[in-house]
């Protein structure tokens, strides 16, 4: 099922989307739809994190920083292991 919408994009954005869609071998609409889907997933995911925090307590600034650092290491290609000391149920 597909819904048609008329959307307006800034010229530079439209050109960049056009180029990206061509590079990925998909249509302009499919690329935009995929980008929107991803953005919605991020939004729903952050709500999921907030729901968990509502039950378990908010992540502290230190924990957030540790998560950021860990993600950075993983994307840089560095493996690691959880410290049992930091784990809490």
């Amino acid at each position: 099922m597909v819904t048609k919408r008329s959307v307006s994009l800034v010229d530079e954005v439209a050109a960049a989307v056009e180029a990206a869609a061509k590079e990925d071998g998909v249509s302009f609409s499919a690329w935009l739809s995929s980008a929107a889907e991803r953005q919605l997933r991020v939004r729903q995911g952050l709500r999921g994190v907030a729901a968990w925090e509502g039950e378990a307590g908010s992540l502290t600034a230190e924990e957030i920083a540790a998560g950021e650092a860990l993600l950075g290491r993983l994307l840089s290609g560095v493996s690691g292991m959880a410290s049992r000391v930091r784990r809490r149920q």
Partner: protein
Amino acid sequence: MSTRDGVVYGVGALRAAARGDRVMWAVHRAALAHGIVPVVSVAAVAEAFRTEARGDRLEALLAGVEVEALTEEGARRAGELAARADTTDLVAAATADTAVRRNAAVVSTRQNALRTAASLLGHDLVLYAV
């Protein structure tokens, strides 16, 4: 050492989230905050729901995850990979296959099956063991 484009969760990551592992949730939050949607194989989801009581926490995590469906082709790949890795752990094989295809780092428990399967695919597994 080569960079990775994303993150794949194995069943260990889902179990950690279900058990309230704060590091796991912090990594998940970081990924989303950077616009990265972690990927998980549908086989890992099934296994997590089989073993974990906290379905609500799994649901909260999965809200921000792309669940990769298992196609016939994917099922065949995972089965053949498990055979080559000499393991019955189809979830680990499916997770490794997903990580290799997407050039992603893996968050899961430390498993030989996972590392062996990735190695058989010519991929140096980047793993954060929860």
